[in-house]
């Protein structure tokens, strides 16, 4: 989220693409309802299904899956046509909007209607309502990201906000709703295969910075890899790790995957469950460290070498978590770990001890900064405070420097002293924002509740866009225009990110030789904190002030372009808006695009598949399906089906049906009549597991641990398809065939 949930109360218009906060963020949704009450804010929901959120909307557009880009281009078409855009904002703070304007010209409302299924009339109504009520905020979640063009979708939405000048405004922004309480934190700490923590890349420089901060030898780190080239290569992704085992598509790795360690991930939450099952069977070893029985242990037919380590729940451990709005929250331990379960960190420590790198693993927690260098300052560490300090010391990119455990605890213990709408504190926390939303540049910085807001000074949370990609591209200036000066900043307009070399010039100061000696090379690796200190003194953010890029020269599509899903019900449009060519070595595995799309599936598989969440379950439902009360609300896996569609197949409410995917997988579920899905699509909740293609797997559970509810996983039938940049699976667009069981 660029803003935060409470800030939505400042919005005059709220548009939601592919998110269902009424179900997935019930408490957060309160702020949207309050905006409606207090501001008369208009709530617009764009979704392939009439969700609980849509039920509260003023305007609802029933969009065909995977056509968000045409829809937003349609909006931009009307915005530019009617002059609803913000020319001043675009001129000073956006790069390459001309390309977008050109593309938008092609997307007339009639054309948008043909592609998206949303009438030209409704498109106009929505666009006018959203563009003329400012500030407007744009929310999205997995409905926008889980597509082959997911990365383009997530660029398109900010472009819409940039065109309207809604970025960096209270009540505006792009608010991406993260799922669980620490998903943002997991991303920030990079539980991913393509960056180091804090979004530091895989370059040698980054590795060396971390090696220095962890107090380990870079060569030692390098020698941990099979070959040093793997150190700088993206790993397998969660979406397609199973190909690393099965090798049905070509893989590019030092070795196939032979062992799997699962800690905190519902295995049934990713697509292609049949392949996942095959891969699990083929593995030499599976270790699961979770509080509940992960479905990986159930899905597999392996009889041996599957280990489940009982792991503590969040109530049995302590530490900081990061909320969807970049706020940190301290979490206190309620009880000690029950029975023989151990906390996550204890399991990892034991693992490291067993494999002989425990000292290297924990050394970073015993280090501090002296004269701009990380040195060992003590001989023991205290979990989790010292881990938090280590994070604060190292992560400069997103500005975690200010997140000391003391400040975070103080915020957690004084919830009542913060305002819900502004996040501002009172008393000892006066001036600070709740949870110190990052970037929190220094140990006295109050945090930044609204990203890219130049209307407030940097020491109150203001900043421009990050100057991440140089100062110019093909002769065009990438830095912000003069009118985009951050409030109270000594530097007018845009400026580059600060480095040891340019800081004196940009800020017009003179550094002493001692300062020059201890200062890091640039703001991202400056352990001395001097760059941040001088930047804040001058009222600017250390990371520069540039234009936001609407045109990205490094991406497969320079500006977002519509490309039909791999399995599209409109094969005619697939010819017109084809997907990418097949991609080699995409997260170490070849990935198919056009070779799938060139076949017409729409005749044999005429029904669109929508998947999503239920309010009583989260993720793969591993936890909640063990609660007798929660299970009572939705005890069985089902498919939402429109009575009109059901009639065609002679299906009655409550009948069992088979759902077949183009990949040949099938699931048997109960049909539930509802008008919330259109007659050309069905909806599946994805929280169930324990039944695979009609086969009850309950005997695979350890004795006595079968949950109250088991059922088919929706992801058994979600189709093949992966994002071109991130490799997120395309679970939000796909085709199926149904038949009465």
């Amino acid at each position, binding site marked *: 989220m660029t803003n935060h949930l409470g800030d939505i109360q400042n919005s005059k218009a709220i548009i939601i693409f592919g998110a269902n906060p009424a179900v997935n963020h019930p408490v957060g949704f309160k702020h949207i309802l309050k905006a409606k009450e207090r501001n008369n804010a208009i709530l617009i929901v764009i979704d392939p299904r*009439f969700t609980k959120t849509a039920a509260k909307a003023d305007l609802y557009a029933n969009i065909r899956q995977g056509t968000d880009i045409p829809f937003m281009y349609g909006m931009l078409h009307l915005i530019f046509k009617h002059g609803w855009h913000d020319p001043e904002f675009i001129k000073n703070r956006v790069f390459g909007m001309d390309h977008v304007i050109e593309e938008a010209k092609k997307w007339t409302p009639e054309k948008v209607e043909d592609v998206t299924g949303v009438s030209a009339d409704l498109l106009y109504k929505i666009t006018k309502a959203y563009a003329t009520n400012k500030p407007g905020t744009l929310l999205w979640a997995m409905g926008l990201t889980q597509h082959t063009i997911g990365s383009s979708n997530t660029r398109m939405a900010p472009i819409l906000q940039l065109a309207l000048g809604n970025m960096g405004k209270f009540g505006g922004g792009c608010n991406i709703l993260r799922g669980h309480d620490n998903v943002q934190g997991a991303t920030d700490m990079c539980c991913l295969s393509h960056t180091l923590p804090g979004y530091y890349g895989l370059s040698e420089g980054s590795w060396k910075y971390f090696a220095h901060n962890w107090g380990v030898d870079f060569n030692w780190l390098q020698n941990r890899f099979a070959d040093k080239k793997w150190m700088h290569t993206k790993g397998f992704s969660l979406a397609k790790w199973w190909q690393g085992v099965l090798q049905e598509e070509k893989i590019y790795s030092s070795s196939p995957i032979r062992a799997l360690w699962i800690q905190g991930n519902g295995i049934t939450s990713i697509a292609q469950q049949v392949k996942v099952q095959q891969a699990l069977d083929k593995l030499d070893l599976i270790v699961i460290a979770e509080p509940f029985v992960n479905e990986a242990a159930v899905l597999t037919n392996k009889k041996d070498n599957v280990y489940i380590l009982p792991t503590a729940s969040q109530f049995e451990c302590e530490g900081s978590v990061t909320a969807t709005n970049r706020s940190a929250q301290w979490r206190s331990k309620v009880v000690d770990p029950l029975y023989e379960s151990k906390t996550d960190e204890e399991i990892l420590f034991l693992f490291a001890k067993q494999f002989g790198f425990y000292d290297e693993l924990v050394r970073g927690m015993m280090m501090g900064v002296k004269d701009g260098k990380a040195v060992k300052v003590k001989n023991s560490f205290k979990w989790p405070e010292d881990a938090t300090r280590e994070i604060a010391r190292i992560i400069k990119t997103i500005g975690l420097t200010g997140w000391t455990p003391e400040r975070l605890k103080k915020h957690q213990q004084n919830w009542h002293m913060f305002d819900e709408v502004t996040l501002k504190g009172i008393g000892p926390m006066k001036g600070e924002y709740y949870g110190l939303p990052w970037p929190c540049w220094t140990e006295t910085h109050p945090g930044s509740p609204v990203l890219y807001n130049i209307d407030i000074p940097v020491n109150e949370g203001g900043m421009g866009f990050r100057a991440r990609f140089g100062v110019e591209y093909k002769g065009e200036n990438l830095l912000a225009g003069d009118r985009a000066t951050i409030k109270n900043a000594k530097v007018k307009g845009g400026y580059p990110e600060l480095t040891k070399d340019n800081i004196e010039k940009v800020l017009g100061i003179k550094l002493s030789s001692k300062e020059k000696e201890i200062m890091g090379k640039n703001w991202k690796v400056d352990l001395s904190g001097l760059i941040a200190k001088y930047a804040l003194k001058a009222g600017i953010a250390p990371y520069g002030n540039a234009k936001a890029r609407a045109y990205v020269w490094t991406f497969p599509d320079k500006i977002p372009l519509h490309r039909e899903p791999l399995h599209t019900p409109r094969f005619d449009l697939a010819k017109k808006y084809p997907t990418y060519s097949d991609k080699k070595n995409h997260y170490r595995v070849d990935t198919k695009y056009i070779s799938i799309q060139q076949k017409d599936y729409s005749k044999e598989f005429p029904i669109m598949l929508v998947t999503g969440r239920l309010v*009583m379950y989260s993720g793969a439902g591993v936890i909640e399906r063990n609660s007798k009360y929660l299970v009572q609300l939705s005890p069985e896996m089902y498919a939402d089906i429109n009575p009109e569609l059901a009639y065609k197949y002679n299906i009655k409410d409550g009948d069992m049906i088979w759902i077949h995917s183009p990949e040949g997988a099938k699931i048997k579920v109960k049909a539930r009549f509802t008008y919330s899905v259109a007659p050309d699509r069905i909806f599946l909740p994805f929280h169930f597991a324990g039944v695979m293609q009609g086969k009850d797997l309950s005997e695979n559970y350890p004795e006595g641990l079968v949950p109250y509810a088991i059922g088919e996983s929706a992801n058994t039938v979600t189709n093949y398809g992966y994002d071109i940049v991130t490799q997120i699976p395309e679970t939000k667009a796909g085709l199926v065939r149904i038949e009465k069981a």
Partner: protein
Amino acid sequence: MYEYARMKFYCDENRCIECNACTIACAEAHELPVGINRRKVITLNEGIEGKEFSTSIACMHCTDAPCSQVCPVECFYIREDGIVLHDKDKCIGCGYCLYACPFGAPQFPKDGAFGIRGKMDKCTLCAGGPLPTNSIEEFELYGQNRIAEGKVPMCAAVCSTNALIVGDADSVAEIIRARNAAKGKGTSSPYGWDIAYK
């Protein structure tokens, strides 16, 4: 003379999103048997644009509660703050209260060999029952007595959107007025209040 508050429930259909937090929290707090729904969330016109809405329903603690009027054992008693409670030791499970209740609040566990209705169970507004306050016996029969502890009833305490409000009639009315006034929609009587409260 001291003026007692008049406790009332109110569920704002503009805010209720059918998250069922009230139902679950109620069941967990009072350790209800599965199948007893002291509070239920009900959605109407699901999937129909402009018509779908949800509301949370439990005992409304009505004025001159019809349940207490028809009870053949007179097991009901109404506190001075308007909370309608009943004595399970007297209850015979006849179901008359259910037939009299406009809100379908009384719940009956299937009890005994014939599946005959057991003692009635319903929302106590988290005010327990006639047994000693906060005793184990009271908890086992009626659930928590949060009112005695000065706490808000569980359902309203956990409501994710503050759709469900409980409290003194005047304060509840004030909140409704404020919410409606902000929208410029004026004041209106909440659904079901004309039947529950006179």
